[in-house]
């Protein structure tokens, strides 16, 4: 038990998630030598990729000669656990994934899928990046983002609150305030 636990603790995992569909451009980008090199320079030791329905299969690596150990899977019911265990999260731009990661207080890079027809998703990532809650980029610029990011400058996200909406709805319907 002792040895393996030390191993797990020494690992710094980068968790990549594409969500419920596929995002081959992102998987391909994290699988490039440039990105892996930059991640390794920053002290990350392991790359775990949730690749969804994508057709691009990343190259598995055990570590050793390679800068990073690489592993992947398609889907999992325990994404939350992978997020919790990660030291850095690289995610697609879906709001569910973004807020789940921010709530866990994990450093986050959001990569926008430019192949999507209705690309409203970049709005949210851009806004949250302006507010310094996360970094964001495109698949082609990911290695620059990793090279230039300064995780200490990120501002923790304080989860929102639905009570203002609930209050307005109650008032409109004539219910007394609590």
């Amino acid at each position: 038990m002792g040895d393996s636990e030390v191993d797990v603790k020494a690992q710094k995992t980068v968790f990549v998630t594409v969500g419920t569909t596929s995002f081959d451009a992102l998987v391909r980008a994290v699988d490039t030598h440039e990105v892996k090199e930059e991640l390794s320079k920053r002290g990350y030791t392991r790359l775990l990729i949730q690749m969804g329905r994508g057709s691009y299969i990343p190259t598995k690596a055990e570590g050793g000669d390679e800068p990073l150990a690489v592993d992947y899977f398609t889907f999992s019911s325990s994404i939350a656990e992978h997020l919790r265990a990660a030291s850095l999260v690289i995610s697609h731009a879906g709001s569910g994934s973004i807020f789940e990661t921010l709530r866990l207080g994990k450093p986050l890079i959001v990569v926008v899928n430019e192949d999507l027809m209705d690309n409203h998703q970049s709005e949210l990532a851009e806004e949250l990046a302006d507010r310094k809650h996360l970094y964001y980029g495109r698949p082609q610029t990911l290695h620059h983002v990793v090279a230039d990011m300064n995780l200490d400058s990120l501002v923790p996200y304080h989860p929102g609150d639905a009570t203002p909406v609930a209050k307005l709805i109650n008032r409109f319907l004539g219910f007394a305030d609590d």
Partner: protein
Amino acid sequence: MGCAVAITLLIAAATLIITRFLYVLHRTGKPHKPRKPSSSKGSAPQPLSTLIVLGSGGHTAEMINLLSVLQKDRFAPRFYIAAATDNMSLQKARLLEENADESSSSQFMQIYRSREVGQSYFTSVLTTLIALAHGLWLMIRIRPQVILCNGPGTCVPLCVIAFLFKVAGIRWSSVFYVESIARVQRLSLSGLLLYKLRIVDQFFVQWPQLQKKYPRAHYVGCLM
């Protein structure tokens, strides 16, 4: 002579309908009077039957956040509707209702989507008609007093049907729309339609930029 009577009746009927239509449009967005206790003093006011239109993924998470702070004894019974292809959302709603552990009842229903991603426009016409008929059938069964929705395309026909129910005097309902947190600069198509049609009583946005562009919207901050 008979013809003149028929025309007069027709004009009278049309005037009546248009007047009613304008009245409903005028009343939409006007708050209700304070609710009185249902019977003896001290007891809570009558609960309102509530329809909750669920979207997928992030939309559902936002809606669940809102539902978790709404008083269950005021919004009851609760009817959940999700797209027939979306099992996850109803599962999440069921989980919320189980945790609530209240005596108030809730029901879960699925609705046909007018169009699946990638479907051709020709078959879309037919599926849209089926979806509309199904929506009408569900609305006749539920006749909700409150409708909560936050973005999925399925909520637009349901809100239109709710408005027509008001005009026809079948059921008066209050419709609340919360634009998704993912919308920072521009409204979604559903949001834009409902805003322009003015059939929503209160329209909420989660970013100040949107409130500036759409002044009738209420800015409420982030739900997530």
